[in-house]
């Protein structure tokens, strides 16, 4: 009896590493993945230590919410760093779940995001997908191969993951899924669809973790700002000059920002509509041999501006976000003249000046213009962020100017603005 008990104890001890390894795969119990803190009843970040203790606290976010090489965890006023060797798992309020795993060809444990758990587990790490059947972790991969067809070089895509999935789902249900597997692409949604259908067909329990993580967050934004314009002309005649008395404009914008994309958390897209206005006086002169022409025009310029921007975060954490962006803006512009005059004076002969009530400048009604921006964003409350944006827009051939019989010349405008806004 003692010998039998001793043998059983030996087997149990020998299996301990195996039990730990099994904990990495298969269907994950709710006690591990749930991010609901029993003490508060609300969702929270958490870690599961190597010893199996689950602690709820706050994890310092990285810009890439899916990529952690270490975890800085704040718990009861103290912040500690944990490596994959220190933790079994950790989870975020947003619903992301990570396990410490040793991936194929890796020498040590890494934090791997779990997308789907069941008999087969779908994992993600740095752009690659892995499938874990509890015995082996395999990468789902494909590669291109150059082949020659009738002497012509072609590229063929070899989908290695198709055979991997077919082998792992072998059986009656797998046969039903063959068509779906063969048509699939190396994409998260395709793999999730295959695994979901497989587990439902087999009547196996499964859990999807990304359904709680938003594909993208949408936030309304409003901003106010001032801009300063400077101009240049590539075809102005040598004997012509111009000046705008006021370069300042005022602007207000409202719109939406799409941010925190599940797969591209550093990217954001915003679409706004705004109003830009300035009042200025345009003075111009043109000198030829026998006469001098001058023009003056007081006007108020108004533009409805619709910018579409793509932003990329250079720094993104809980305290601040610094991002740069590219913008394409549609400017629907009009202006209202207060007064306009052109004066032409004879230089030779009788000194006479003729005053004409004619415009010396017009603008282009509808233009699409490129721009760049650099911005900083800071949280001011749990639901509100303050952002400061510096943006430069280039308005090509925005104005056209002509004084009497002088040649028409085009004026480009570069508008640099500073905006302060709120993101809700």
């Amino acid at each position, binding site marked *: 009896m003692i010998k039998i008990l001793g043998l059983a104890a030996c087997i149990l001890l020998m299996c301990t590493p195996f039990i730990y390894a099994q904990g990495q795969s298969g269907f994950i119990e709710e006690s591990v993945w749930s991010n609901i803190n029993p003490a508060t009843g609300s969702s929270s970040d958490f870690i599961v230590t190597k010893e199996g203790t689950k602690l709820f606290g706050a994890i310092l976010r990285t810009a890439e919410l899916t990529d952690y090489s270490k975890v800085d965890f704040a718990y009861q006023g103290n912040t500690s760093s944990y490596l994959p060797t220190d933790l079994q798992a950790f989870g975020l309020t947003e619903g992301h779940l990570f396990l410490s795993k040793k991936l194929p060809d890796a020498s040590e444990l890494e934090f791997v995001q779990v997308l789907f758990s069941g008999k087969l587990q779908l994992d993600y790490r740095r752009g690659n997908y892995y499938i874990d059947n509890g015995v082996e972790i395999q990468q789902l991969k494909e590669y291109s191969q150059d082949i020659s067809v009738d002497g012509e070089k072609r590229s063929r895509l070899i989908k290695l993951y198709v055979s991997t999935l077919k082998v792992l789902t072998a059986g009656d249900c797998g046969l039903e899924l063959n068509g779906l597997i063969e048509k699939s692409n190396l994409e998260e949604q395709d793999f999730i669809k295959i695994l979901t259908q497989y587990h439902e067909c087999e009547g196996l329990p499964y859990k999807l973790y990304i359904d709680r993580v938003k594909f993208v967050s949408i936030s309304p934004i409003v901003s106010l700002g001032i801009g*300063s*314009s*400077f*101009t240049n002309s590539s075809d102005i005649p040598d004997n012509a*000059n*111009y*000046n*705008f008395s006021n*370069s300042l404009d005022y602007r207000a914008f409202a719109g939406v920002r799409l941010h925190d994309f599940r797969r591209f958390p550093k990217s954001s897209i915003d679409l706004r509509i705004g109003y830009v206005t300035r009042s200025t006086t345009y*003075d*111009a*002169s043109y*000198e030829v041999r026998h006469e*001098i022409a*001058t023009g*003056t025009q007081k006007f108020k310029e108004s533009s409805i501006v619709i910018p579409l921007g793509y932003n990329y975060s250079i720094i993104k954490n809980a305290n*601040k976000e*610094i991002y740069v962006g590219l913008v394409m803006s549609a400017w629907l512009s009009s202006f209202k003249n207060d*007064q306009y*005059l052109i*004066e032409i*004076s004879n230089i030779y002969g*009788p*000194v*006479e*000046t*003729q*005053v*004409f*009530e004619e415009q010396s400048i017009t603008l282009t009604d509808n233009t699409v213009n490129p721009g760049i921006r*650099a911005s*900083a964003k*800071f949280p001011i409350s749990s639901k509100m962020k303050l952002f*400061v944006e*510096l943006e*430069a827009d280039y308005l090509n051939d925005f104005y056209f100017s002509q004084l009497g019989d002088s040649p028409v010349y085009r004026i480009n405008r*570069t508008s*640099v603005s*500073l905006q302060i806004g709120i993101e809700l």
Partner: protein
Amino acid sequence: MKSGLLFLLIFSLLFFSCNDKENVLPRTNPRFSTPSVQVINQSEVEFIAQVYDYGSDEIIEYGFVFNNRSQLEIGKDQVVKGSGRPEKSFRLVSNHSFEISKTYYVVAFIKTNKSVIYSQAIPFNSK
């Protein structure tokens, strides 16, 4: 906060370095509108013009030149005038025997110590 200050600094640098500073030729003469005309009767017509800017030249006289041709000139055509600096809106009535239902032209003018400034000519029909 440091980032915010950096933005303000960059913006200030751009703001103060981007004014258009071209050498537009200066104007010292007065500026005024094209005249408007009110025909009172066969011999009386009232001309009105607005001064936008008196300029810095000394104004000697002001008025209107009219006739039945569009190329009008003091000394060659009919003139109605006042002396010195005009009101912001100046008006003068001509006493002239206009031919019935004929097209005439008028220009406003201001004479300074440096030159004569004419407005555009506009046509009007006599009664």
